[in-house]
């Protein structure tokens, strides 16, 4: 492009010098782009454990210990569901995570809306409780939840795990939704009212669609938190097994490669969801 404009009819002999000036002068070495190297280092650092998990799901081991590379096999994928206990644990984890995502997503949205939109008695207290739920050490939360369930005479198990997961992940949804509500132009909703929409229609057609990205990301955070929670879950699980609890239990006897297989599948599912979310968001903004 530069050459084309510079070798216009007015400057017939400018072509050679123009191409020359576009290039770097000889001798001036290109400075290394440290920012790029740093970025890639961080990315590798972050993805190394996941890569190991994926690679070792294909490890053809003979004994119980999946720690050294012994050859490639797909056998763990065909035998993925060889441990009935692990299947139950995985099913529990997935159903609890989905329910947590839905319940915490719903409650967190309402909470975030209220905190972002209205001034009410107990607002700052609610904010405080929300942030303390995030910042409190999990051991403390787990122990106090357990004593609460015991005092209330609730049998610990599946449902207490669900209650606990909703409890600690609702704040994350509320905070994401609140942030979105605070940056939303209030006159957009007023415009809907002004054009004849009832408060309910306004919420359905304007407020909710504008909150969807925040609700989705809040819900995905809740899902992720629920899937891999170990500490709180171990307090309130009773005899119910979840995926992380089962892995912890099996460390003493050696973690079977099926765990890597399921981990890989869960990770793959997560990547798919994230990609789908990005694609949808891009389509929405168009």
């Amino acid at each position: 492009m530069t050459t084309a404009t510079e070798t216009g009819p007015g400057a017939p002999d400018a072509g050679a010098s123009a191409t020359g000036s576009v290039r770097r002068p000889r001798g001036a070495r290109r400075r290394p782009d440290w920012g790029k190297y740093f970025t890639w280092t961080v990315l590798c650092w972050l993805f190394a454990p996941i890569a190991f998990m994926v690679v070792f799901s294909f490890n053809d081991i003979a004994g119980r210990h999946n720690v050294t590379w012994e050859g490639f096999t797909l056998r763990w994928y065909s035998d993925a569901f060889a441990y009935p206990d692990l299947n139950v644990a995985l099913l529990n984890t997935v159903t609890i995570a989905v329910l947590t995502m839905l319940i915490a997503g719903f409650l967190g949205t309402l909470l975030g809306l209220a905190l972002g939109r209205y001034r009410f008695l107990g607002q700052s207290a609610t904010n405080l409780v929300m942030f303390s739920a995030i910042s409190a050490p999990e051991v403390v939360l787990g122990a106090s939840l357990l004593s609460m369930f015991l005092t209330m005479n609730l049998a610990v198990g599946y449902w207490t795990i669900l209650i606990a997961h909703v409890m600690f992940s609702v704040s994350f949804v509320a905070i994401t939704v609140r942030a979105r509500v605070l940056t939303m132009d209030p006159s957009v909703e007023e415009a809907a009212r002004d054009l004849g929409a009832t408060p309910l229609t306004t919420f359905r057609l304007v407020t909710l669609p504008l909150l969807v990205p925040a609700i989705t990301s809040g819900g995905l955070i809740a899902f992720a938190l629920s899937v891999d929670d170990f500490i709180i879950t171990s307090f309130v699980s009773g005899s119910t097994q979840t995926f992380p609890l089962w892995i912890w239990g099996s460390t003493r006897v050696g973690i079977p490669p099926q765990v890597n297989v399921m981990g890989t599948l869960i990770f793959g599912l997560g990547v798919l969801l994230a990609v789908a979310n990005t694609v949808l968001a891009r389509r929405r903004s168009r």
Partner: protein
Amino acid sequence: MATATEEPRTRHDAGARAGTPAISLEQISKAYRSGGEDVQAVRGIDLRIEQGEFFSLLGPSGCGKTTTMRMVAGFESPTSGTVRLHGDDVTGVAPHRRDVNMVFQSYALFPHMTVFDNVAFGLRRKREASGEIRRKVAEALELVELNGRERTKPGRLSGGQQQRVALARALVNRPSALLLDEPLGALDLKLRQAMQMELKRIQRDVGITFVYVTHDQGEALTMSDRIAVMNGGRVEQLGTPAEVYERPATRFTAGFIGTSNLLSGTVAGRSGEVATVRIEGAGEVRASCDAPAGARVDLTVRPEKIAMEAEEPAGDRARLAGTVTEVVYLGSATHYTVRLGDGSEVVVFRQNASDAASAAERGETVWVSWRPEHAYALPG
């Protein structure tokens, strides 16, 4: 809602209910509680805005103009007073049940909807047939010269185009009044001037009552049929652009609209409408004023009404001598500041016509003069 169907399609002729103003505000007041203290945003406003009128609420920020408009739209409810649309009391009625539409300062377009869906929003709430909706939306987009952009999301449009979508979205409902809250504030100067003409044209074409809130006096003067100049929650003056400009009723209006020269003096004598006012240290001038002899008055004269000459003018022109202290060349005109004998300064605008008398220079002694009827006494 009932009003919407009763009203004729075009509102050029207010024949259906002749004499009923489109909007009337009766003793409207609004107090807020903010930070533990009451803020009186609007203090007893009475306004009648006629059918098909381009009416501006003009004032500095915090004068209550936006609050007043929001009470018409229904987003704020007055602390006391009555809002009427076409004679019907709508004081307690929710915004979605009022037959007025608003164009917001931030445009407030629905970012997740296409231009078509934005404009069709109001019609869909009224459950109009889809064919009707398509026709009306196309018509509205044509009016604002945006046809062909139906499938675009607002985020992909320029500021000026978004502004037009906001306008089309409101106008397509054929409201009995359109409320515009500083709609041109976010546009650059050239676009703003183009849109002023455009708005005036659209208003003439559709014949809908426009209520325009602005702090820009030039905008208000250019477009309005009538202007209410507001300050401190009250209407300072109500009148046509020429009236508020030529005969400012208060010191505030004189200062807020255009540039204005204020001269303080005492009434020395009078003959009919015209009084002789003595300005201590500067001289005596004649001005239209009804204050009794001996009263202190402030005279106001617009800069473009003042002539400036090297020699003392003859005839019955009011005249004072002074020294040029500043000369500002503005291309088409030059602004001179002249210090008078009493120490006060007057600004004189002079067109830079080719045959104009030779320009005055700083430090020169000049005579400023005006016709007595171009100087008015302000109350207080």
